[in-house]
């Protein structure tokens, strides 16, 4: 089970609480986690990454174990604490604007 922390606006959009859980079939990667999120919460399709190109939206960032991994290739294996569910995977909105 993967633990994911969504930004506030996506929590309200998906009607979920502070933390959501998704199960993966294969290894834990950013692509696999977002695939699972979009499958479980289709209303979030297009809000984290582009509908078609699957590129991360510019003002969305990914953090794992305190590291900004937003620019890592999406199929890079994530650290064990994320894969084992001992640490949550963070999806954040960049601090920008007012």
């Amino acid at each position, binding site marked *: 089970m993967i633990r994911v922390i969504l930004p506030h606006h996506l929590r309200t959009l998906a009607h979920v609480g502070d933390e959501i859980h998704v199960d993966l079939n294969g290894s834990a990667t950013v692509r696999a986690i977002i695939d699972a999120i*979009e499958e479980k919460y289709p*209303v979030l399709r297009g809000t984290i990454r582009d509908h078609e190109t699957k590129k991360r939206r510019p003002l969305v960032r990914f953090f794992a174990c305190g590291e900004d991994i937003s620019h890592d290739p999406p199929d890079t294996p994530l650290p064990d604490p994320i894969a084992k569910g001992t640490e949550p995977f963070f999806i954040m909105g960049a601090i920008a604007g007012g």
Partner: protein
Amino acid sequence: MSGIRVLAGTRKGAFILTSDGKRKNWKVEGPHFAGWEIYHMKGSPVDPDRIYASQTSAWFGQIIQRSDDGGKSWNTPGGGPATNPQGMSMGESNKFVYDGVPGTHQWYDGTQHPWEFKRVWHLENHVYAGVEDAALFQSKDGGGTWQELSGLRKHDTGPKWQPGAGGMCLHTILLDQKNPERISVAISAAGAFRSDDGGQTWKPINRGLHSQYIPDPLAEVGHCVHRIAMHPSRPNTLFMQKHWDVMRSDDAGDSWREVSGNLPSDFGFPIDVHAHEPETIYVVPIKSDSEHFPPDGKLRVYRSRSGGNEWEQLTKGLPQRDCYVNVLRDAMSVDSLDPCGIYFGTTGGQVYASADGGDSWKPIVRDLPAVLSVEVQTLK
């Protein structure tokens, strides 16, 4: 008894303002979608309790919301298989994908720039969505899925279109109730376009526009049209608030003439037509394109009862000193009661209403976030 529902889209959520036909006492509900930009909301003329909302964010993209109970509850309409096993919609209603290869348009610096979808600016019935970067989409399943009417974006002049300061948005969609094949749209800063075959093919309708801020002031495209309005009974007569100049056409846009007349400034954003008097129109003059606030700090609506040229200022109930708000292009609307009600919202968060055709005004609410759009539903 009749009633009024005002749909106010703001920078930080949606608000629904309701009153009975007297339009004196108002109930304010919201914010819906708190913290999100609501560029536009539109009620269905067939079922007024069906309301569409364009919810958008630079961070998280475009969401289409729909209410089937007058705004009490909202859902994303979905599409394809209606729901997944958890009962949630499949998210297709948020998917706006340009038809084919998107191509390029002109960027601010004159280079070519890829067409990139950003948001839905304006919703119109049946349902159409005007989007940024400029294109027209339609939905035939109540907002569940969207398809582009790509003949517009693929017009030969497309590579010459360029964004205005607010983005390259398709912000006006006019439907001719007497001729369902005719659709007119306006794009900032490309100009106005008309289709006479249901949106398949388009032609620019900008002859007579004169824009000194572009290299060729009489160019076929490139004009920063801010808004077009039409009375349903006179679909060949169009009124335009251009970046500068208030214009009029009596041949469905084939030719335009200026009707700015005695306005204190002919720069502005919204323009609208009285519900029962097709020659009575309203604008809100703004000082200039460099100073987006009313001349002399006085918020004045101007009314022409002659379809332009002769204008009278309407000030009763509006601030006449120290007022430096703006009124955006989609932030004015009219009801169909008698006397006609006029409504507009400001970037200062006020929504003003006039229940007497503009003679006097009162704020319905004063302290909303900046108002992006105002739509009015007249409820029977």
